[in-house]
């Protein structure tokens, strides 16, 4: 039985990443505060229209303008500060050195995922060598020995509870790489690499979306993230490596 894709009053998808819990807490805090302020402001607006003050009194600008303003400033400062802490934890530093490396390449309208293989290094790529018909959609340079064992897949498979460092690239136009259940999103920009790192926690299949309009097929630039228990992942990876070795052995 598949769980419903979203849950709760706010309709959020399940959170399956290590940093997702803190993010969700902060997001929900923000949403409830916004809802409360919304209700309060509308209450004041409607009450203010409905009631009739008997004797007009002079304005107390301090109490009805500056004090609430100061309170709001403090509230927003607090929220901003917490958000910056979470942001800094995720973005100010790169992934741990032991993090798993996967390269993500967006092109109209597919995602490709590349694992470095047993040598732990990605081979050079060259856009002029891109040949999807010859099973080289990323243009891996055949003269580079690092590239021989690189594994290219169309499904992102990751082990649970291990940090992963994604290198994002785009071949043609800007794409948006997003995994809602992992609470990550980052654009892939042609001509430059960007990094994003996270730790998947709960095994399962998750949606990968393109979130930056990239052409007519934008809506079907979807992929799947499969998070596996570590042991199962290792088996999968070994199978892929063996397949890759067999492919390269054949001339």
């Amino acid at each position: 039985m598949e769980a419903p894709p979203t849950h709760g009053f706010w309709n959020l998808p399940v959170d399956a990443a290590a940093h997702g819990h803190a993010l969700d807490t902060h997001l929900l805090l923000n949403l409830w505060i916004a809802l409360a302020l919304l209700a309060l402001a509308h209450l004041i607006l409607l009450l203010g229209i409905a009631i009739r003050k008997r004797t007009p009194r002079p304005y107390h600008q301090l109490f009805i303008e500056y004090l609430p303003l100061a309170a709001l400033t403090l509230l927003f400062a607090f929220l901003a500060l917490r958000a910056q802490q979470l942001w800094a934890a995720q973005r100010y530093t790169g992934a741990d050195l032991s993090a798993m490396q996967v390269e993500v390449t967006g092109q109209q309208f597919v995602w490709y995922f590349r694992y470095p293989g047993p040598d732990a290094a990605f081979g050079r790529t060259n856009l002029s060598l891109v040949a999807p018909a010859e099973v080289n959609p990323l243009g891996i340079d055949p003269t580079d020995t690092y590239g021989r064992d690189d594994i290219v897949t169309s499904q992102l498979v990751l082990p649970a509870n291990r940090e992963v460092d994604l290198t994002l690239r785009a071949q043609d136009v800007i794409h948006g790489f997003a995994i809602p259940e992992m609470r990550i999103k980052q654009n892939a920009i042609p001509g430059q690499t960007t990094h994003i790192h996270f730790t998947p926690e709960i095994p399962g299949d998750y949606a990968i979306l393109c979130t930056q309009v990239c052409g007519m097929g934008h809506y079907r630039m979807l992929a799947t993230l499969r998070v596996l228990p570590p042991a199962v992942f290792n088996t999968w990876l070994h199978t892929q490596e063996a397949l890759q070795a067999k492919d390269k052995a054949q001339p």
Partner: protein
Amino acid sequence: MPSTITPPEIDRHRISDGNNGHRPPTDKRTGGNGEGDGDNWNNRPRGHRGPHERISQARIGLFFALGGDLMFFVALISVFFVTKASGHFDAYDHFINSWLPTAIPSILWLNTIALLLSSVTAEIARRAMFREVDAMDEWFGLGRPVSYRAAIWLSATLALGLLFLAGQWVAWDQLAAQHVFFRSNPSSHFFYLITITHAVHLFLGIVGLIVALAALKFSRSLATRQVWVDTTVWYWHVMGALWIFLFLLLEFGQ
């Protein structure tokens, strides 16, 4: 307010005479008059409040227009700096920056001098518009010394401006002879982009000069002539200053 001639009462209250030579233009700034009590708005003619208001209005419009222009060039210059620094890593992890500075043709120095000189002549023309003695002469019916004097200097400005544009053309020609085109290099993109957009602006200035000269010849209202000459010359000055900045950027900023 110091006014050398106090106009008769009837002139002061005449409704909207358009300043077509009815009243003596004595205000040193613009030739306005009839506002001894400058703060009493009721004494100002209806519709427009005297020539000084008109010229200040034109100047403020010009200020905002040039503000927009400034942002246009600031955007270009921001991109200039980023593009200059940008590069990529090649297959061997060397950082490759493909920016090759474009050799600036030395004729640009001459052009710059021509433009500087044109600003001087333009300023002389602008000041000539506000010579009180000439304005009075015209009012007395002794010809049009204001227009005469300013037209000479404005024509000199026009000639120097055309010289500058011709010089720019020569510079583009020289670069083309060295096979440096717009598409050659990021730096040449910017050289052409900056010089051409500036030339377009200067061309607008030349149109302004021609209109101002036409106004000097045909307009009966001194205020109208003053507005055209004053605004065009201020525009010309700013384009000159902008050119100095852009030229220094191209010469030393690459």
